[in-house]
Structure formats: C-alpha cells, structure tokens
C-alpha cells in the first residue's frame, strides 16, 4: 500500500518540480531581463496594421470533431482494461467488445454519411 502511495507521491513531486522550474526560470529571467515599455509594444500583433475590432470564434465543425472524439475516447476507456485481461476473460469478452466497437463504429459511419467529416 505504502509503495502505491509513494508512486503517486512521485507524481505530485514531479508536478511540484515542474512548477518550481517554470517559476524559477521566470524569476531568473526577471532578474536579468530589461523592461522597456514603448507605446505600441503591448498592442495586439496583427501583421503590423491596427488590430481591427470584432472577437472571433470558432466554427461548429470543430465542435462536432470534439464530440466524436469524446465518444471514442470513452470507448478507449473500456478497451484498455479489457485488453489487459483478454486472455483470462476469453471469447465471451472478445465478442461483447467486438459488438461494442461495431456499435460505436456505426456512429462514425453515420457521421461520415452526414458529411460531418467534410468541410462545407
């Protein structure tokens, strides 16, 4: 049990270390680097011309991609344990997983047919 916790203590430590490094570097940089405010330095970069108004936002297409992704991601979640135990579980598990995959594949096929995967 303690080993188990130590494993994840390692994860925590690593995250901490990562943060420490990022912070440390930036701090060091802060010591060294100059700061020279200039009138236009903080203007949004837009290829040299004045930034034009209007806030952009994405296209619904992206959302559909994300959606598909979530669905299959979830599938993967079930596949992994299955993959680990496949040997002991045997044919029955295999079949039920194939069914599972096929059903989800139907979803992909449907999306494909609906032309979600195409632009416009």
């Amino acid at each position, binding site marked *: 049990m303690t080993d188990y916790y130590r494993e994840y203590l390692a994860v925590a430590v690593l995250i901490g270390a990562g943060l420490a490094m990022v912070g440390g570097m930036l701090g060091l940089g802060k010591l060294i680097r100059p700061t020279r405010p200039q009138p236009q330095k903080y203007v949004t970069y837009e290829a040299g011309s004045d930034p034009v108004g209007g806030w952009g936002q994405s296209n619904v297409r992206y959302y559909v991609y994300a959606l598909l992704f*979530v669905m299959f991601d979830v599938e993967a979640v079930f596949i992994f344990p299955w993959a680990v135990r496949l040997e002991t579980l045997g044919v029955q598990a295999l079949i039920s997983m194939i069914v599972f995959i096929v059903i989800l594949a139907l979803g992909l096929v449907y999306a494909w047919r609906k032309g979600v995967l195409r632009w416009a």
Partner: protein
Amino acid sequence: MILNQFLVLAAILFCIGVYGVLARRNGVLVLMSVELMLNAVNINLIAFSAYLRDSAGNVFALFVITIAAAEVGVGLAIVLLIYRNLHSPDLDNLEQLKG
C-alpha cells in the same frame, strides 16, 4: 481516512452544483454545474467502493463518467442550437421558443 470526509466533501460539491444550476443562466455554465454534481456522485461511488473493497463502485464510476461525457455532448449541442436561434446562450429567454 474516514469514509465521511469523502462523503461530506461530495455533499458540499453537490450542493455547489445545485446552486450553479439554479443561479446560472448561461447554458454552458449550467452544464458545468451539472458536471460538478456528477463528480460529487463519483466521489461517493469510489469512496464506498473503497470502503466495501468491491470493484462495483469503480465500475459504476466508469459508467457515470461515460454517461456524463455523452450528456455534455448532447447538452452543449442543445445550447448551440439555442445560441443559433436566439444569438445568446442564455436559457432564460427560452420562452421565446414557446408557441
């Protein structure tokens, strides 16, 4: 660790979620609050699973996560639909859709 720590934490999260669902009007935020509640449920499941030393809780947590994902997918799609028709993601002016 006593079981109750987790249960109470879950309860608090759940209630915050409830508050969000009631008080928020932006559809996306309502969905987020729902996610909070589902997380609370999951914590409960896992806690009990650990308490009873039985994987059932874990399995159901998996299922819940799955369902949650699906729910967000559809929910956001609906919000988008609303946005598309009303040009605002707010759920309050749904009345406009009536009749």
